[in-house]
């Protein structure tokens, strides 16, 4: 048990190191361009470029540059933006975290409930009209680009049907901190939650249905049937329990990926100032230090989340534990 966990943590450290090297290479060692000029942003003064070249050590060997970058990101945390003169990058990123977390956590609740419903109902009513309908709906959900769905939602709730009873409660776009007002926070996030959850309800619902149908061909289900248990009990207590294991792993991975940047598009569409929107604005201004910081922090978060899921899995599933 302990050995498994340790091995997993070692692997996590290796992957984090690999990612940081990769990011470093992408940002600073791409052939054919001057990284100092890129970090300075558009129309920077030559003195600024010169200063950056010295600060980041671009006149020195690559490993030294890598070391300097990591030091500024994690130890001194004094990476500054050159586009918005002198603004510290790391606090900016940390400030944006609550909005992203609120968005993803709410959507996660919705998509777990939604996909449980879709998967269980579709599997229970297998090959009926209900099953087909649900599967087609989830396929459509998977096929919609999330930012486009967001725009359609905005169109309906902010403009076209805003004055009807259905959407008159929807506030303008933007994030309301939880500490400010609970109701405002909730209202501002309901539509983004739904938008983000649709895709995952589709994916998870389909997978859960497939797993449940596979479980139904197992011997222990036949035994349960022969014992005369009710169909509901068989579904919920026997089939669903085993089918949920892969579900848990996937949930961990997707939750991590969303917090780590995949929610970017949803944040941009709904004007929620989370980590994703910070990255987006940095993209527009070609503000490289900010992008560098968000990419590194987010991918580290994802890797850590994945490792955590694996460790939890070892705790839950006795077969992995050994």
């Amino acid at each position, binding site marked *: 048990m302990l050995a498994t966990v340790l091995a997993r943590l070692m692997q996590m450290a290796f992957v984090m190191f690999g990612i940081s090297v990769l990011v470093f290479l992408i940002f600073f060692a791409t052939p054919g361009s001057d990284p100092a000029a890129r970090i300075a942003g558009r129309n920077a003064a030559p003195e600024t470029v010169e200063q950056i070249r010295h600060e980041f050590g671009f006149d020195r060997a690559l490993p030294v540059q890598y070391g300097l970058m990591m030091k500024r990101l994690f130890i001194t945390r004094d990476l500054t933006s050159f586009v918005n003169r002198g603004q510290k990058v790391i606090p900016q990123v940390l400030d944006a975290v609550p909005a992203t977390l609120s968005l993803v956590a709410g959507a996660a609740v919705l998509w777990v409930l939604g996909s449980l419903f879709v998967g269980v109902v579709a599997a229970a009513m297998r090959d009926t009209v209900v099953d087909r309908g649900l599967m087609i709906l989830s396929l459509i959900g998977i096929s919609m*680009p999330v930012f486009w769905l967001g*725009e359609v939602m*905005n*169109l309906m709730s902010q403009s076209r049907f805003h004055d009807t009873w259905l959407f008159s409660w929807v506030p303008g776009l933007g994030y309301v901190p939880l500490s400010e007002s609970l109701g405002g926070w909730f209202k501002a996030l309901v539509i983004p939650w739904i938008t983000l959850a649709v895709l995952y309800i589709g994916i998870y619902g389909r997978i859960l249905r497939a797993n449940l149908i596979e479980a139904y061909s197992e011997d222990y289900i036949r035994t349960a049937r022969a014992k005369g248990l009710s169909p509901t009990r068989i579904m919920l207590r026997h089939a669903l329990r085993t089918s949920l294991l892969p579900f848990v792993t996937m949930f961990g991975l997707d939750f991590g990926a969303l917090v780590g*940047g995949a929610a970017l598009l949803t944040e941009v569409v709904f004007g929620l100032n989370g980590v994703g929107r910070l990255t987006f604005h940095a993209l527009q201004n070609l503000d490289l230090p900010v992008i560098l910081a968000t990419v590194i922090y987010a991918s580290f978060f994802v890797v850590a989340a994945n490792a955590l899921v694996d460790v939890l899995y070892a705790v839950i599933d006795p077969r992995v534990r050994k």
Partner: protein
Amino acid sequence: MLVLLLVALLTLLAPLYAGYLGVDPFRSNLRGKVEIAGEVVQVMQQSTEGLGLGVTPIGPTWNPGGYMLGADNQGRDVAARLLYGGRNSLFIASAATVICLVLATLIGLAAGFLGGVVDMALSRILDVLWAFPVYLLAISLSIVLLTSTIDLGLFTITAGSLALPVFIIGIIYVPYVARPVRARVLTLRHSEFVLAAVGLGLPTHRILRRDILPNLMPTIIVFVPILLALAIVTESALSYLSIGVQPPDASWGTIIQDGQTLLYSRPAVALAPGIAIVITVLALNVLGDAVRDALDPRGQVR
């Protein structure tokens, strides 16, 4: 399948539509006029509210005489751009899929067949790429590549060319394909007919070509529709973030972005390309399910 052919055909006919109507989908046309139901109308219409300042592009006319879906804020014909954009979106998705499959197959073959140190090194690299969130990787690559011209020796990628999104999307999905390919090569490597071929002393390239590749095909083909669907969505997302296809070129993603400022006044601009994406990706997903059921009934592909 039919739907896909239809979409592809329509986008190939794009020059026909634009040429026939005499609209230029890539140049702004703020002073243009168009004839609707016998009346000549300005493409950009003066606002009638308030002080009468500001202009709004005309909305959908629904007659097949130009500006069927209205104009965007540059006065360009949305329907024509939609077709041209579809060309780009489909081209990028197909090319990226090919790149991804070729790279993944090569890596999978090398790792699975050669084993040992090669396998170790490649698998570790794939681990790192796998853990790297797709959009973050794409964003970092695009932001750097967009601002500079890359000289890779064999070929040069200039900033803002279509090759850029192709290259980026092709690379980011490699681990998703390379891992299953490697696993399959590994089982094939120890299957009896390959062991027999090795025992006969046949050259490695012959074993790879005649024994392993044909048996690998099902694994690879299953990924084609899935990758195409993923690539279309990723391309549109990158373009929406303005780091994919660069103006004045169009793609479905860029048109959605153009339409965002007009969302409340002229929703057709943003809605139409989105519907095109949904139809195409939905068709690909259905096709993907069918292919998987036919070739690999027990496979679990995410």
